[in-house]
């Protein structure tokens, strides 16, 4: 049997992300990647800080001055929050790796806990750091 020519019709495309209603798990999944990428870039700051400390008091005074400034502290504060968010997001993945927390209520609760917990941990860390000082 001879092959019949396929009619060229515009094939329907599968819907992309923007068509779906945002859910907690979806948002936290995207945010896990964003926070990971931010931490990735942030390691350069850690390297700069350590290199300045190894280079001597003059270099260190510049870097310490920057991190002690309002912008510097804001960066460190946001960095702490991003770190905590990524950590809790990772712990959530650990739970899933062990097959725990797949039902609707649990995965919703864990997603919300990632956001609430990260903010709470960040505030606790900064409160303790400022009080102990």
């Amino acid at each position: 049997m001879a092959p019949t020519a396929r009619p060229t019709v515009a094939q329907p495309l599968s819907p992309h992300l923007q068509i779906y209603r945002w859910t907690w798990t979806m948002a936290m999944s995207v945010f896990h990647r964003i926070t990971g990428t931010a931490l990735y870039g942030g390691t350069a700051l850690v390297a700069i800080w350590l290199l300045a400390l190894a280079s001597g008091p003059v270099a260190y005074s510049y870097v310490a001055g920057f991190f002690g400034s309002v912008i510097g502290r804001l960066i460190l504060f946001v960095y702490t929050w991003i770190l905590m968010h990524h950590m809790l997001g990772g712990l959530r993945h650990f739970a899933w790796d062990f097959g725990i927390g797949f039902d609707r209520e649990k995965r919703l609760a864990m997603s919300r806990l990632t956001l609430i917990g990260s903010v709470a941990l960040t505030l606790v860390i900064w409160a303790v750091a400022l009080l102990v000082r």
Partner: protein
Amino acid sequence: MAKEKIRQDTSVSIRTPRARVRGLGVAHHGVSHWWLQRVTALTNTVLMLAFVVIIANMAGRDYAGAVHIVANPFVAIILILALLSVTLHMRIGMQVIIEDYVHAQATKIAAVLANNVYAVLVAVACLYAVLRIGFGQPA
């Protein structure tokens, strides 16, 4: 095919079919990336919490005070372990992101290479700095 038949016959070869495929797959390193990502995630949680405590302790100290903390062997070892764990973790993590979103072959290879360069650069810079401070030779 014949060779494959022999391989599958456990009376000829002692290696079971499972043993032959274990750790392999299309990328030839099986789930090693996935596993290393989980292991470093676990070590990161412990080491980065320690890192945060160290940083919080250093905030507001002068140069001599900051050097004194990092030069402490326990602090230096924690810092080195943390930077190794973190740079391994971030290297794999970013590679996954690149492989998910960058589809043009040349760009993908370039991006993965750049990712490796960045991760090694950060790791070596931090390692050198901590060792130099630890061995007491800051300029």
